[in-house]
């Protein structure tokens, strides 16, 4: 789960990392009120969870009330990369003398946390990574041992840091690692970590994503994950316990397993356009597949549906009942092709066929999709 910038700021403050003076507002009136406390010039930042927000118009500077009113008026209710702006973070404009980059993330391949730092903070950090990688340093951490100031200083000396900046930046890194560890971060990043004119460090912008699998045990009070999901169908998917990604095609898909789902999309995508990606995981029940059908059929103008499931850990014969119940209750008429193999496959086939589903007993998904293409075309 990704946290909004203002939520991340609160987390960082709670562990003693300095953040700019700020307020979260929803209207120009609130923005003007906040400005009285913060002073001008100030920065308006749309609280939307998209990358490249700045270039997409989500960050503006206001020098006086007039400008603030205009800019905040425009920003509230607008969309940044398709995501509606609900909240704006109004922050002081810090006097920055240098911009650093610091982050902790999970290095999947080595299976360890990795702490990253650079003296070249700012929006061009990825370019720096490509062109002058020596300006970015990183170190892997033993997750059982943790990350101590001496390790942070060792890392930062490789960037040539010394004296006060060495100590203050090491301090921030250790606190950042604490956030990573206590909030079970996938990524925690401060970019830029501003060196203010008075020498203090300040987290001007921050990214914080926590592990969805750990949400229940993280002790820091987190926002509700469901409310975080903008797309209503994706939110519904999460609520019923499946992974649903909304797409702009017209062929529905239910798969058990992400890899099978992706392969199904790849095969469908050669002739038709998927309307969604839906992956059930290992929790199939009659009820779950009924709800999956319900979810998928909310999409308008579907031309067909492909169900691709395996009976390994999943009782697909139970799931089939849910599919058929939905079809019967709602009189579904679009062609549905199902490939359902593994434990209880015969029972599953029988049930599905009783609901008018075209069951393919070959293993290769390509054959099932070929049948779906035929049926969809014949149906139109």
């Amino acid at each position: 789960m990704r946290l909004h910038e203002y939520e991340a700021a609160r987390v960082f403050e709670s562990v003693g990392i300095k953040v700019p003076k700020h307020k979260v507002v929803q209207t120009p009136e609130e923005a003007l009120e906040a400005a009285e406390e913060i002073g001008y010039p100030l920065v308006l930042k749309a609280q939307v969870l998209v990358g490249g927000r700045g270039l997409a118009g989500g960050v503006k500077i206001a020098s006086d009330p007039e400008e603030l009113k205009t800019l905040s008026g425009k920003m509230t209710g607008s969309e940044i990369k398709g995501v509606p702006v609900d909240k704006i973070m109004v922050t002081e404009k810090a006097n920055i003398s240098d911009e650093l980059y610091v982050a902790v993330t999970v290095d999947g391949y080595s299976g360890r946390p990795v702490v990253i730092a650079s003296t070249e903070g700012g929006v061009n950090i990825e370019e720096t990574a490509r062109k002058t990688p020596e300006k970015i340093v990183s170190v892997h951490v033993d997750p059982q041992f943790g990350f101590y100031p001496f390790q942070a200083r060792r890392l930062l000396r490789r960037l040539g840091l010394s004296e006060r900046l060495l100590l203050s930046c090491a301090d921030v890194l250790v606190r950042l690692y604490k956030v990573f560890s206590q909030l079970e971060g996938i990524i925690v990043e401060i970019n830029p970590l501003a060196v203010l004119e008075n020498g203090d460090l300040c987290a001007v912008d921050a990214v914080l994503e926590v592990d969805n699998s750990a949400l229940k045990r993280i002790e820091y009070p987190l926002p509700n994950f469901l409310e975080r999901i903008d797309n209503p169908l994706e939110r519904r998917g999460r609520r019923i316990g499946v992974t649903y990604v909304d797409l702009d095609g017209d062929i529905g898909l239910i798969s058990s397993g992400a890899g099978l789902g992706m392969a199904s999309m790849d095969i469908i995508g050669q002739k038709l356009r998927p309307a969604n990606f839906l992956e059930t995981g290992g929790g199939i029940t009659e009820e779950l597949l009924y709800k999956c059908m319900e979810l998928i059929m909310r999409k308008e103008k579907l031309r067909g549906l492909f169900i691709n499931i395996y009976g390994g850990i999943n009782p697909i014969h139970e799931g089939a009942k849910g599919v058929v119940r939905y079809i019967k209750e709602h009189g579904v008429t679009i062609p549905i092709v199902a490939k359902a193999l593994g434990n209880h496959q015969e029972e599953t086939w029988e049930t599905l066929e009783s609901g008018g589903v075209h069951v393919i007993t070959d293993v290769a998904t390509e054959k099932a999709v070929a049948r779906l293409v035929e049926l969809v075309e014949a149906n139109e």
Partner: protein
Amino acid sequence: MSILLDDSTRVIVQGITGNIGRTQTRWMLDYGTKIVGGVTPGKGGTQVEGLPVFDSVGEAVRETGATASVFFVPAPFVLDAFYETVDAGVSFIVIVPEHVPVHDVMKMRAYIKDKDVFTLGPTTPGILVPGKGKMGIMPASLFFPGRAGIISRSGTLSYEFAGILSEKNIGQSTVVGMGADPVVLTNLKDILKKFEADDETDGVIVVGEVGGEQEEKAAEFIRDHMTKPVASYIAGRFSPKGKRMGHAGAIVRGSAGTYEGKCEALKNVGIEVLNSPIDVLEWAEKHNIT
């Protein structure tokens, strides 16, 4: 020889008293796996499918001589059970559960760093050796004995590839699910190493997917150390890109993780990249894998 598991491997089931544990235990037994007992703390002294249930892994190992364990333990308890199992001296551990917190997986990996234990998962369907046994949830009907090795990041795609081969009577030596999580306990290349050394495997199919660096790193290994033919399929060519935030991922992985990046890395070292799963048949025929 298959890799990691055969019909003499003594296996225990952790979380054997849960619904899934019970069902899968029955199916593993039906397939001929030498399941010798189970563990559920607090349920010691009971029985499941005629097998003794123990309160601790240590006791199970002492009483049954087990050397392998398959986990059907709820995700929040996997870390604790894993420590216990490693401490008990079990040398092969299969972690079936999904949604194990990634910080736990990192700790698990750190814990076994210098220990002589082989692990699969989390989020793995496990391992199946056709005709000999299975640890995990792979549906037996799709597999057939033979000489193709399969390693898959995705569970269900491993069934798909095995099934496609089996339909044409091309059998498998061992089918391994390495786990679908961003962090897994054993990386792809370390499983490839086992297949390279296995005299019952003539070629290996690597079923990958977009994300992570497994395939890229494996390509280097294959170039330097593999003599057997390797085919690969990468799922997710048309997957929508996630909304990426932050730069740390890009800094750590560079261009690794994309469909194009992976295919290029694999092709560069001479690995055949399959366009679609069904193309595996042609590859198997070409290399006389039966």
